[in-house]
């Protein structure tokens, strides 16, 4: 199923190709567009002034999943015969301590094919997914030993608008502490500890959940994934749910940092499951139950994340705001500027 969000023209100079720190500004000094979800009113500020838009008693929920280096290079073998010397593998989702769903960037991969990443790390293709380019592979190592190899060999996923090989560290939020995402949960990237302390001093509650992101782009426009095809693992604590109820009961607002947090919280709201896997698709028909506002980056044309934003704000208001963001030369993607919808 192809995502159904609206389309628009994004000038290429608005793709953030450099992290803010390498553009000469602090990570928390990127621009902030504030969109009133009821009136559509838009104002412009700096992300570091986020405290001005939140009230004591509001709750900000962040995703502290940490990005893993998800690109591996290996040789592809069938039996003892080498089929392809250098093949790129993109980790898509961890299934167990030793198995992952992956995108193998090569034609004609078959069940039983072997990938050799290094003298001590190999994998075998154990499952081909019908209607999906993803394959399941079983690694020769598991648990921490597999992590050891993935971190020693892997590189972060970098998209086509990135020209420099930014290290993995640039693909982390300052609070990331649970490795497992293959793409950075980037809405949290603009936060610094200085800003988090400032929010706390104002009486704004902070909390953390984990949603380990999967692979959002399968390197083929024809194969664009819908959220319903994209299963992601999430973990919430009882304490988070209690905080949400307490915040709402006392008139505060629950602000999700990123679409991943919306997905995890609303999944728990729908199923009551605190630790699970979700393929929840949130769009304008979805009645948000847990979350009142969102801090997010700017999403590219047709991205299903835009569908999710229409659960917060009518599409025409969002469309006007995005036009204004383009006029004001906001920067898009994981190293770009921020949008508060409240």
């Amino acid at each position, binding site marked *: 199923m192809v995502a159904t969000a609206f389309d628009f023209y994004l000038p290429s100079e608005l793709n953030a190709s450099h992290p803010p720190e390498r553009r000469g500004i602090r990570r928390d000094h990127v621009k902030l567009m504030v969109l009133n979800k009821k009136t559509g009113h838009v104002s412009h500020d700096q992300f570091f002034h986020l405290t001005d838009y939140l009230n004591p008693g509001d709750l900000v929920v962040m995703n502290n999943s940490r990005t893993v280096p998800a690109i591996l290079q290996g040789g592809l073998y069938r039996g003892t015969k080498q089929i392809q010397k250098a093949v790129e593998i993109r980790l898509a989702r961890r299934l167990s301590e030793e198995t992952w769903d992956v995108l193998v960037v090569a034609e004609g991969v078959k069940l039983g094919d072997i990938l050799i990443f290094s003298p001590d790390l190999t994998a075998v293709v154990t499952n081909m997914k019908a209607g999906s380019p993803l394959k399941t592979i079983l690694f020769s190592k598991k648990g921490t030993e597999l992590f*050891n190899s993935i971190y020693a060999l892997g590189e972060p996923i970098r998209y086509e608008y990135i020209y420099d090989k930014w290290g*993995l560290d640039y693909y982390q939020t300052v*609070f990331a*502490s649970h490795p497992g995402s293959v793409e950075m949960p980037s809405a949290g990237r603009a936060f610094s500890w200085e800003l988090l*302390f400032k929010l706390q001093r104002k009486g704004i509650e902070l909390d953390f959940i984990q949603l380990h992101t999967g692979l959002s782009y399968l390197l083929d426009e024809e194969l664009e994934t819908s959220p319903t095809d994209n299963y992601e693992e999430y973990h919430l604590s009882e304490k988070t749910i209690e905080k949400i109820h307490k915040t709402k009961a006392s008139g505060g607002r629950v602000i999700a940092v990123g679409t991943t947090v919306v997905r995890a919280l609303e999944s728990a709201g729908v199923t009551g499951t605190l630790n699970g896997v979700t393929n929840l698709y949130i769009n304008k028909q979805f009645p948000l139950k847990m979350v009142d506002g969102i801090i997010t980056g700017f999403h590219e044309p047709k991205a299903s994340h835009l569908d999710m934003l229409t659960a917060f704000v009518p599409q025409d208001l969002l469309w006007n705001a995005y036009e204004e963001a383009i006029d004001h030369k906001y920067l898009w993607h994981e190293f770009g500027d921020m949008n508060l919808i409240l």
Partner: protein
Amino acid sequence: MLKSKVVMITGASKGLGRALTLAFAKEGTRLAICSRTSKGLFEVRDKAVALGAEVLAVTADISLNRDVERFVAMTEEAFGKIDILINNASILGPSPMPLLLDYPEEDFAEVLRVNSISPFLVTGRVIPGMLQRNQGSIINVTSEAGNIGYAGWGAYGISKFAVEGLTETWADELSSTNVRVNMVDPGEMATDMHQLAVPDCDYQLAKPEDVVDVFLYLASEKSNGITGQRFEAQELHGRDDDGCHCI
């Protein structure tokens, strides 16, 4: 109670790092240890396991961001969190140590890089988890030569000045939290590093095992609220000072 706490120790294959690993193993902690070379490291791991500890031992050069990420991510994967971090790893530089007046620039830069960047990187990587739980103890190993400048301690002493600055600055930045950052000057000990620093040492030295108590104290809840402090291990241990102003 230190039992089941997760303790991370850098530079654990010999000397003080080895003694600390075994001391914490006896307390029933879970341990994540690293060293640049695997030989001594795995021997220490096996001894700690024999004492009943659960140990993750990782070969890593923690002056490199990539290795720090790998080591800490493996620890988070294995144990889920880190309660106590001991930044122990450091290098001495050329031996015998030349006067600063004679110090080669390349060696000076390397000692400063390794001894200041390593605790910066590891602490920066570990602190987020501690802040989210609002608890944790970070202990940096310093030296008397990092508090007072002495002729003949060259880049090593100056790099430890950086460690003391890191400790005080972090402690101040985190003063509104329950994450504490302290430093310990272990004093002179009979270690390989001391042999390199003072090749013709003719006075009695403490054993690394003699100085672990202050680390156990700073790791424990007994030291809650204590942060930004500098401890001299051998003074606390009650050992008579021999008057030598060395590490």
